[in-house]
């Protein structure tokens, strides 16, 4: 007997055509932007990007827009700032959450389930709900104690790390609960300390979960505007912030906006296409964020 999925093979052609149409519609916006990034100011203002696509050899293709946004508009500085914001904002919450998840999974203590319940509950909070007091607190620290974590990287690291913790602890604990307890008990019998077990056994065995969360968090931080705007600000402008300003100056030519957008897209796209499997897994697990 032919199965359902076999019998609909005859729909293969129709489905393929349907998908080609959908994928076409879905890709047009990005394609338009990518093409515009490589056009000169004059041609970007004179004709639509589809014109360049229809007649690719009669165009004055140029990298001018990239040079302009990298140098004059400071996109190069922003690229660096974004990396410096994103890397610790990814590594720190993973490190901190893995430690906490380890305690929640393998160490008995009073009120464990209860406290874990609170952590899970904290995933519920939209991050804006904590921003104003945190900002006021950091400004207070700067004014009264001269500790300037605001307006620089550490402010963003701390806030990104904290807001990532509930979800990270939740995901990592779920994963650690699937690790073989017998192995850990055996290590205890052999005289390994809890600290050693964490670093030598639990961390290496948790790599799939750590990787999934890392990619999810990296993309989240890279694409974030609000926290970077509030806590890093003007001094070390990240790419989303810079891009927003570029968008405000589109009178300067769409090729600049397009080139800026291209630069901010390229890293997430590389991460996405090379590590898609992990990204999907992290996304599925992080669906509650």
């Amino acid at each position, binding site marked *: 007997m032919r199965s359902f999925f076999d019998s609909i093979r005859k729909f293969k052609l129709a489905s393929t055509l349907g998908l080609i149409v959908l994928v076409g519609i879905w890709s047009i916006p990005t394609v338009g932007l990518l093409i515009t990034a490589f056009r000169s100011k004059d041609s970007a203002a004179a004709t639509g990007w589809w014109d360049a696509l229809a007649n690719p050899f009669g165009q004055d293709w140029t990298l001018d827009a990239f040079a302009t946004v990298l140098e004059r508009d400071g996109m190069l500085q922003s690229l660096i700032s974004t990396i410096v914001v994103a890397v610790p904002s990814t590594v720190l919450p993973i490190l901190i959450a893995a430690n906490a998840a380890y305690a929640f999974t393998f*160490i008995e203590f009073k009120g464990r389930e209860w406290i874990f319940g609170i952590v899970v509950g904290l995933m519920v909070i939209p991050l804006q709900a904590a921003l104003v007091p945190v900002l006021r607190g950091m400004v207070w620290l700067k004014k009264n104690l001269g500790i300037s974590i605001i307006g620089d990287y550490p402010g963003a690291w701390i806030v990104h790390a904290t807001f990532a913790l509930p979800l990270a602890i939740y995901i990592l604990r779920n994963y650690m609960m699937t690790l073989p307890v017998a192995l850990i008990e055996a290590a205890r019998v052999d005289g390994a300390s809890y600290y050693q077990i964490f670093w030598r056994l639990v961390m290496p065995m948790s790599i799939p979960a750590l990787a999934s969360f890392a990619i999810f968090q990296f993309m989240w931080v890279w694409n974030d505007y609000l926290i970077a705007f509030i806590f890093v600000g003007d001094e070390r402008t990240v790419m989303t912030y810079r891009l927003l300003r570029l968008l405000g100056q589109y009178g300067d030519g769409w090729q600049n906006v397009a080139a800026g957008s291209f630069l901010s897209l390229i890293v997430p796209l590389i991460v996405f296409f090379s590590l898609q499997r992990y990204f999907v897994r992290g996304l599925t697990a992080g669906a509650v964020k």
Partner: protein
Amino acid sequence: MGAFGDIGYGLFAIAIGIAVSLAVYKGLDLLVNLFSEKLQKKIRALGFLLPAALLLVVILLIPLVQTFYLSFTNKSGKEFIGIQNYVDLFSSPEFLGILLNNFLWIAFVPAITVAIGLLVATLGNNVGPRREKIFKSLIFMPMSISFVSAATIWSFIYVFVPPGRPEIGLLNSIVVALGGEPQPWLIIDTARFNSFLLMIIIIWLQAGFAMVLLSAAIKAVPEETIEAARIDGANTVQVFFQVIVPQIRATIMSVFITVLILVMKIFDIVLAMTGGQFNTSVLGFEFYKQFFLNFNTGAASAIVTILTILVAPLMWIQIRSARKQEALR
């Protein structure tokens, strides 16, 4: 070179940041080991939990309570004024318009996103694994794009060039080619038309997410149930709606609620596309505007408190269903 100075500073900052946190855990471990065996057992967990607990309490829990308190204070956040902020908000037509926008986002975006995701997932199931992978990647790709980048991409589609100059916006070019007049799309707020243009961007971003989860769910539907329905004479459409859809209902709900939560908190798109003008503002944007443009701490806190109260129950449902699914595994 400023940029290279930044690289040096950045690398240094990254190294210090990570080294300090590693040292904290090592230090805590050494500290715990100073105590007697019996006491160690009691405080062992603290060595691993303390940094996380400290951050969550100081940066999340306490500020949360403070925000709630600030929502009852005046513009500077220094004077207690009771529920005045809430009274002002709910008696202002502008704020009621904002709630209407949020409602429209909620009413349209999650349902359309799920429908498109389901369509792509179903079609993808018919075309063979190699094509499916390519098509799905392309639909999923916008998921990796930031809201601000997405806004630049779509601004370029909606862009309005005053008549007399060459048309470079895609939407207006199509309209002109069909014999119409170019329109300043984002300004048209009749029937909240411009808000719908913004919604399209989120649907474009999120459909891939819906597709990935729904596709996995469809593939997990046992084939026997489908064949049984075929033998009973059900046609393809009947099989889809009466056999497949009921079995993936949990996933549909979960995707729907996830997109719903995202949409309720929507902010960046509105900021980048219209700056909240022309009746497109939403709660997430209004919070930003009140705090960073109007410097009104009390009103901003009240708005974000309203948002939290609206979102929290939904997220709670989401987490509970996630836990239930784990229990089944």
